[in-house]
Structure formats: structure tokens, C-alpha cells
């Protein structure tokens, strides 16, 4: 049997043909490697979440999940719902999610329309600049904003204080819910723009022109043609980013936690790592289950939509860029200025303040006087102190290993889905997809509990180890990478693999020599995304942190909380440079490959 075409069931009839005959030279029905990967995917999702859910209904004498004297109980939930400490984070989360989505999506739609439809100068440069922060770790951005919006010494506040009637401290406060919400909104922009731009571009094409030809009024064109066509694409982006905002951790953790402003995800973290007292595992557990439900429900909706939206295939189709709208000079230049200001505020200023702080021995607002104090001690420290070096090494190992493992699993999953087309492929795809809806902090808690109980019952040294971090990173990135590799395999003609099969090449040889080289752009894309993600991830690394598996993101966060701003800034810039460098290299590789394969 071979791996092609709709697979027939082994019918009763077929068995009748050869009663009792030995199944001679029966080849493997499907390559076991892919099946193993599919099973791993299912296990990776089910086991940690199963442990989380199960342990949330138990309590133990020690307070540890599955500790001594574990028994069934609803007390975790009753405690969370009745002790009055749930309402505040819940309301904060609501404001945070709705606010950041409003800000993030309206900015991205505005920029998308401006760059796709208006005759602005430097459109491609502006697009690249707005999208670039995709590769900037959010923990680093959070620190930069913390420095910029410091009520007393923050650069932006200093500038605003020059206005009459504005006095120190303020008016902006990095630790306020408003600031956290607005900054998270900025964080959502780059990826949203990547998702929204094709929607805007394709709907501005032929169909709209057809409406013009039929004599529809401009208003009818927008309400009858453009909006209905864009709606599925925009709703998909909205739901996807809702899940992102609901599980956002870095910005609220860096800016809000110290000031006592908690959203759901940081509230779970502080239950595990309280400023005073012992960890409250039961609370973290029950709250994680609630957050999981909050994030997964829209994911279900999104999955249904993503399947149905093929009806609106035009939104993904390629389309030529329509002649841009020619705005009068004043409007054009004011929009252009607005974009430049945005880029300055959200990209240039944060990077500048990090650079400044990394070169200053203590916290000072940038000034000419400060120029005399420039020093490179922070960078020297990073590259000479051995604990820093091991942190750097851990970070790179985490990035490389997670990216490689997840690419192998994602490629196998996609192969199962696209080529083998069985039930296992579909189930695996659903599980891989679900991973995007698992909030990082929830996964962290799940893995923490799973590793704690494994350690205490089977004595596997997983708790606080690097492999545990890799497992976590693989799970959180599996959804996105599988989508990328699925699109990659989908673009390869099946005949190219069939031809290799007819040449006598085994399944592994076909995969190695034909399929993987042909989908290498997709794999490179998935690899570098995971690599950059693992480098910048704070959620999992901080929840699962120990002395053994310390990575740069955790180091940064700790330094920041201790007030060692110089080192934090230097590390932040270093991390950003590696992440951006890897992304740029991958882009070049992909562009080169795509050019060559036509």
C-alpha cells in the first residue's frame, strides 16, 4: 500500500479474496515516523492540560499538586470565587483585552489602508518599519516603555512636563492599567498588520472595480462589497488577536505587577510567586482553568470560521495592487507625518532609551551632560561573567532545540494531514491548532504541576530542567508552525513525490530529497519564528524557572525588578539583535529559495 489518494477501507471483500493467506511483503501502511509525531502532538496537549484539570479538583495536605494526602475537592474553585480576589483581575483583564484590541486593530487597519491605498512616499520602508518589532521581545519593549514612562524621570514625561501646567510626577504612568493597555495595543500592531494588509489589498482589487462599472455609489461600494468581503478576514484577525491579548503576560508583568495592577495571567503568576508567603498552587490551578476556558472558546469559533471562510477565497487570493488614491497635499503629508511619528514613538524611542540606559552607570534621563558618563561595563559584564555566559548559552540552546524539534513535528503533522489524509491527521491538526489558545502562563502552570508530580512519584528530574522548557516552547509554537508547514506542503504537487516513489525512493528518501527541500522556505520561516519566540518568551521561562534553566528573558526580568537597569538594557538590546538578525537571515534565505524555484 502506498501513501497516496483517498485510502480505501480494507473491505470484507478484499479479505474474502485471500482466505487465510499470509500477508506477504505487506508494506507499512504509513510511515511510522509521522504517526509518532502525530501522537506526540496529542500527548503534548493532553497530558499537561489533563494534569492541570485533574489537580484543580484535588487538594493535598502539603498544598503541592498530588502531594501527600491528595483527595477530591472543589475547594480550589470555591475559594477563588468567594474570597473576593477574583473580581479585580477579571475586570482589569476585560479592560486590558478590549482596550488593547481596539487600539491595536484600529492602528493596524489605519496603517494598512494608508499604505495599501494612498499614494504615500516610502510605503515599503514604512511597512517594514512598522512590522519590524515582530522580532523584538516584548519583555524588552516593556522595559523600554517602563523607562520612557517613568512618572519622574521618564523621557516622555520630561518632555510633557515642559508644557505649561504639567508638573512632575506624571502625567503618564507606566504602571497604570491605561498605560499597560495602550502599550499592549502597540505590541499587537506588527502581527495584526501582517494579517490585515492582505485583506485590505485583495478587497481593493477587481471586485470593487466591478462595482464601479455596474454604477454603484461610493457608499454602496463600501457597504455592499468591501465590508462584506473584508469581514471574514477581519473577524479572523480579531479572534486570533483576542486570544493573544487574553494571554498576554510580558507587558503586564514588567510594568504592572510591581504596582499591584494585575490581569488574569499575572495574577496566576503572583499566586505561584507571591511577594510574601508561600505559593498558592490551588489558586493558580483553578484560575488557570478559568483563563484556559476564556481563551479556548473564541478559538473554537475561529477554527469553525477558518474552515468556512474558503467561501470567501478571494480574501486570500493574490490580487494586483490598485492604483492608489491621490490625496491632496496637506492630507497626504499629515498622514505621512503621523506614520513617521508613530514609527519614532514605538520603534525608535524605545530602542534609543535602551541604548542610553545600557551605557549609563545609573538611571538618568538622556541629556547632553549624561554623554560624559557613557561606559561599556554592562556589555563587558555580559560577556565575561560566567553566570551570564551560561544564561546566554541556555537561551541559544533553548531557541535552536525548540525550533528544530517543533519544525520536525510540524512537518510530520502537515504530512499526515495533507498527504495521508486520515483521521489521525485531522485530529492531530485540531490539537496542534488548539495550542495557540493555551495561554502561556496556563501551560507553564500545567507543566510545572506535571513535572512536580512526575518528580515526586517517578523521580524523573524534569522539574526546573532545560528539556521541560523545550517541551513548553514546542507546545506553544506548534499551532503556528503547523499552519506554516501545512501551507508549505500544500504547495508541493503530489506528483513530485509520486515521481520519486516511481524512481524507487523510499519514504524517508522522498522526504529528505524532495519534500523537505521543496518546502524549505516554509520550514525556515517556521524555524526562525520559533527561534525568535523562544528567545523572547518570558511567560514559560519565568514560571518554570530554576537555577538550572535560567535564560536571558528571565535574567532581564529579574535585573529589572532588582533595579539593575544598565544590565537589563544591555541584555535586552543583545536579545533584540539576535532575534532581528535571525529573522533577517531567514527572510533572505526564503526570498532566495522562492526566486530559484519560481
Amino acid at each position, binding site marked *: 500500500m502506498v501513501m497516496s489518494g*483517498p485510502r*480505501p477501507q480494507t473491505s470484507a*471483500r478484499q479479505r474474502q479474496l485471500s482466505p487465510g493467506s499470509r500477508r506477504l511483503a505487506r508494506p507499512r501502511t504509513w510511515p511510522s515516523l509521522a504517526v509518532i509525531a502525530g501522537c506526540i502532538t496529542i500527548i503534548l496537549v493532553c497530558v499537561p492540560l489533563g494534569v492541570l484539570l485533574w489537580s484543580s479538583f484535588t487538594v493535598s495536605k502539603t498544598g503541592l499538586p498530588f502531594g501527600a494526602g491528595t483527595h477530591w475537592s472543589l475547594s480550589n474553585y470555591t475559594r477563588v470565587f468567594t474570597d473576593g480576589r477574583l473580581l479585580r483581575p477579571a475586570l482589569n483583564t476585560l479592560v486590558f483585552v478590549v482596550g488593547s484590541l481596539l487600539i491595536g486593530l484600529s492602528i493596524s487597519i489605519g496603517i494598512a489602508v494608508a499604505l495599501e491605498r494612498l499614494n504615500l512616499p516610502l510605503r515599503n520602508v514604512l511597512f517594514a518599519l512598522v512590522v519590524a518589532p515582530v522580532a523584538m521581545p516584548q519583555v524588552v519593549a516593556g522595559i523600554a516603555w517602563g523607562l520612557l514612562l517613568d512618572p519622574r524621570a521618564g523621557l516622555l514625561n520630561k518632555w510633557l512636563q515642559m508644557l505649561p501646567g504639567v508638573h512632575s510626577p506624571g502625567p503618564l504612568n507606566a504602571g497604570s492599567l491605561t498605560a499597560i493597555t495602550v502599550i499592549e495595543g502597540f505590541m499587537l500592531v506588527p502581527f495584526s498588520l501582517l494579517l490585515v494588509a492582505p485583506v485590505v489589498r485583495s478587497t481593493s482589487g477587481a471586485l470593487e472595480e466591478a462595482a464601479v462599472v455596474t454604477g454603484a455609489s461610493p457608499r454602496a461600494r463600501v457597504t455592499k462589497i468591501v465590508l462584506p468581503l473584508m469581514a471574514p478576514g477581519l473577524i479572523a484577525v480579531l479572534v486570533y488577536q483576542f486570544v493573544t491579548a487574553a494571554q498576554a503576560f510580558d507587558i503586564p508583568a514588567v510594568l504592572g505587577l510591581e504596582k499591584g495592577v494585575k490581569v488574569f495571567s499575572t495574577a496566576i503568576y503572583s499566586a505561584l510567586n507571591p511577594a510574601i508567603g508561600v505559593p498558592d498552587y490551588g489558586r493558580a490551578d483553578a484560575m488557570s482553568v478559568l483563563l484556559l476556558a476564556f481563551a479556548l472558546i473564541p478559538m473554537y469559533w475561529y477554527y469553525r470560521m477558518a474552515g468556512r471562510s474558503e467561501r470567501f477565497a478571494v480574501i486570500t487570493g493574490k490580487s494586483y495592487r490598485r492604483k492608489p488614491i491621490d490625496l491632496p497635499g496637506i492630507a497626504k503629508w499629515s498622514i505621512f507625518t503621523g506614520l513617521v511619528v508613530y514609527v519614532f514613538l514605538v520603534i525608535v524611542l524605545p530602542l534609543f532609551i535602551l541604548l542610553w540606559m545600557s551605557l549609563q552607570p545609573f538611571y538618568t534621563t538622556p541629556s547632553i551632560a549624561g554623554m560624559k558618563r557613557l561606559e561599556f561595563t554592562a556589555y563587558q559584564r555580559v560577556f565575561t561573567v560566567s553566570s551570564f555566559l551560561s544564561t546566554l548559552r541556555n537561551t541559544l540552546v533553548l531557541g535552536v532545540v525548540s525550533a528544530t524539534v517543533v519544525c520536525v513535528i510540524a512537518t510530520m503533522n502537515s504530512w499526515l494531514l495533507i498527504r495521508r489524509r486520515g483521521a489521525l491527521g485531522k485530529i492531530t491538526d485540531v490539537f496542534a491548532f488548539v495550542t495557540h489558545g493555551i495561554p502561556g502562563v496556563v501551560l507553564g502552570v500545567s507543566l510545572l504541576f506535571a513535572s512536580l508530580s512526575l518528580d515526586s512519584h517517578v523521580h524523573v528530574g524534569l522539574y526546573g530542567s532545560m528539556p521541560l522548557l523545550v517541551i513548553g516552547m514546542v507546545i506553544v509554537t506548534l499551532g503556528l508552525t503547523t499552519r506554516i508547514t501545512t501551507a508549505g506542503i500544500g504547495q508541493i504537487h503530489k506528483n513530485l513525490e509520486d515521481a520519486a*516513489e516511481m*524512481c524507487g525512493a523510499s519514504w524517508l528518501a522522498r522526504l529528505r*530529497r524532495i519534500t523537505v527541500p521543496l518546502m524549505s522556505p516554509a520550514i525556515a520561516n517556521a524555524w526562525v519564528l520559533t527561534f525568535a519566540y523562544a528567545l523572547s518568551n518570558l511567560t514559560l521561562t519565568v514560571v518554570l524557572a530554576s537555577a538550572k534553566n535560567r535564560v536571558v528573558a528571565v535574567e532581564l526580568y529579574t535585573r529589572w525588578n532588582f533595579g539593575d537597569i544598565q544590565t537589563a538594557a544591555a541584555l535586552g538590546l543583545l536579545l533584540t539583535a539576535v532575534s532581528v538578525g535571525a529573522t533577517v537571515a531567514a527572510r533572505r534565505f526564503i526570498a532566495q529559495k522562492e526566486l530559484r524555484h519560481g
Partner: protein
Amino acid sequence: MKEVVIAAVEKTYAGQAGSGAVAAVRGVDLVVKAGEFFVLLGSSGSGKTTLLRCIAGLETITGGEILIGGTTVASGSRVVPAVRRNIGMVFQDYAIWPHMTVGENVEFALRHARSGSLRGAAAKRRVHEVLEVVGLADLTGRGATYLSGGQQQRVALARAVVAKPDVLLLDEPLSNLDARLRASMRRELRRITTELGVTSIYVTHDQIEALVMADRIAVMRNGRVLQVGPPEEVYRTPSDLFVGEFVGEANLLPGRTLSANGDDAHRVVDVRTSLGTLRSRAVVDVRAGQDVKLLIRPENLHLCPDGAPPTATAEVNVITGVVTEVVFAGAHTEITVRAGGVTLHLQAHSLDAMSVGASVTLSVMAQWVIALPDGGGDIADPGGANKMVAATGPDAAAQEADR
């Protein structure tokens, strides 16, 4: 060079949710002789590509048996995977690997060959040798995507034959080429396969291609083989109405037999039609009083000169009618004649003057009037029309997937 035996082969696709199972190939029996160039001819959905993929091992048969050189490669109990069948295959869209050069494409097949992997200098020599045969030796180092359609086709052929396969399968290899190139590639392909002496099975929906290239043709419809034979036989004496219409142009006259065709020696049948009684030949059994259709190829209808109207004899039928259309087509003129309520098409020399409305007399030899049972295929296959629509599914889907 090996013989391929296909015995009662069936291929049924398990139905998707909401639709039943679909039979793409239903009990096909064929013997392809060693070294033969065998063509599977049929329209899309006839099951020809599915059958070819079953021989290749890219599809699993659900019934019957396939033997190559006397060895069972597919049956209910035994399946030799495609990689071990020693078959070369040329795909419709060439399936040239875009990330390899011409030489690498061909060498890949050599490296993984069943007949023993070849590497190094020996492999280089063999690759060169085969590229020489297909006329691409000077493009060995060229990237595969920088080739024209015809060149890609040659690379695909070289790759399929380089490891000296027992059988060569070709799936509509010329359908993506332009008309001029297609004509020259037909001859080229025949030359190369003859040179290599490989058993070839060639799938096409193009009847001209089948007639020009085949040693023997099997006409398929609806998952079944309707007729197998050399091109001349299939064209001149179709044994099935569908075959007659599908292979070449055909005039069809409905009628009813006056006599049965009896034994082999007396295959002559008189048929009453709206044009009067015509003498015809039957290659399959017909009874007296049976509804038949008479098939006449346009080139067998002759215009008789005005002055000397022929008389009908035992060998010659005579038809009179009125010209309704004259179309100049270069070398010949296509003439449409209305006679006895039916329309007949024929070809005349383009220098013959002919005008619409003129009365004409036509003659046709009795041996070129073929009597075929009307709707015979449908009796054997109740509800055939519906099933053909259904059977379009997997084959079309497979082709779609191939694209």
C-alpha cells in the same frame, strides 16, 4: 521488457461523508504484451488514469490481480509497493523536481533504482547516455525550471527510463504541449520506446494520439474496457457504439435489422432505415428485428458524378439527398447532406464545385457500414449514464490533485 497482466481489477473509492463509494475501475481484464506500446483511451472519468496508477502502485486495487512478468504485484493478499515494482512513469505535468538540475533529476532515479543503484562515474555515463537519447545531453547542468515544456517532457522521459524499467507508464504526457510540438513528440516518443524496447502503457483522451502511436488500443468508459485491438480495427470496426463515436468522426443512422448476422462467414445484415434498406456489416451479434445504429465514417461516403447515378448492388449502398452546408477547410470541403430526415457529413475534394440546395447521390460500400446494437452498453450497465457522472469523481479528483 515484461508482460503486464491485469485480471478483473477493481478500484473503488470509499465514499466521503454523505456520498456512497465510487467505483473508478470495474473489473478490467487486459494483457499487455512484452515490448508492446499499449494505449488506454478514454474521456476524463473513464478510469484510465486510475488504472494506470494502480499498475504503478500509487493506488491500491480493491479487487482482482495485477502481474508484471508473471509475478503478482497487486492482489487482495499481496501488494508490492511502488518503489519495488521497477516501473518508470511519466506524469502529465512532467513532475520535474525544480530544486535539481536536469542531470540530478535523472541521476536521482538511477540512485534509487530497484535494479541496483548506480553511483559515481558509471552513473554519470548512464545519465549522459539517456540524455543523449532524448536529445538533452548539452543541458545536463541546467536548472530544471529553466526548461521549456517540451524539454521538461524529455527530462521526465529520461528519468523514467534511465534505470531500465520493466514497464514504462505514461499519463497523458503530451497534453500540456502545444499542437505542433505534440505532433513531433508523438513520433519521438515512439522512436525512443522502440529503441529501448520497453513495454509501454500510455494513457490519453486524444483519439488521434492513440491511433498514431498505439500497437494496440483499449477504449475505456465508465471504469470498463469496451474494446481492445489494433488502431485500424478499433477505428474501422468498432464493436460498441461509444467506441465508434469516440474514435474518429461518425455518421449514425437509426434503423431496425431485417436479418440476423448468422455465422462469421455471413456478417452481412440488411437494415431498414429512413433512407431505405441499407446493407451493412455487423462485428457483434445482432438479431433480426433488433434496433441498431449504422455507423458510417465520413471518408467512406462518396459523392457520385451527376451524369452517372450508380445502382445499388450487394456491395454498394446508394443514398440521395440535398446539400445543406458547404464548408471550405483547405485540403478538402466538408459537406452536410440532408437525406431521409437525417444529417450526413462527408468530405469532398476541395476542387469539387458544390452548392447548397443541390441534389446529390452518395454511395458507400456495404463493408464500411457497421451495424451496432443500439443501447447495448446500457443494457449491460443499467443506469450507466448516472454512474458515469458519479465515476467522474475520483478520476477527475485524482487528476485535479495531480495538477
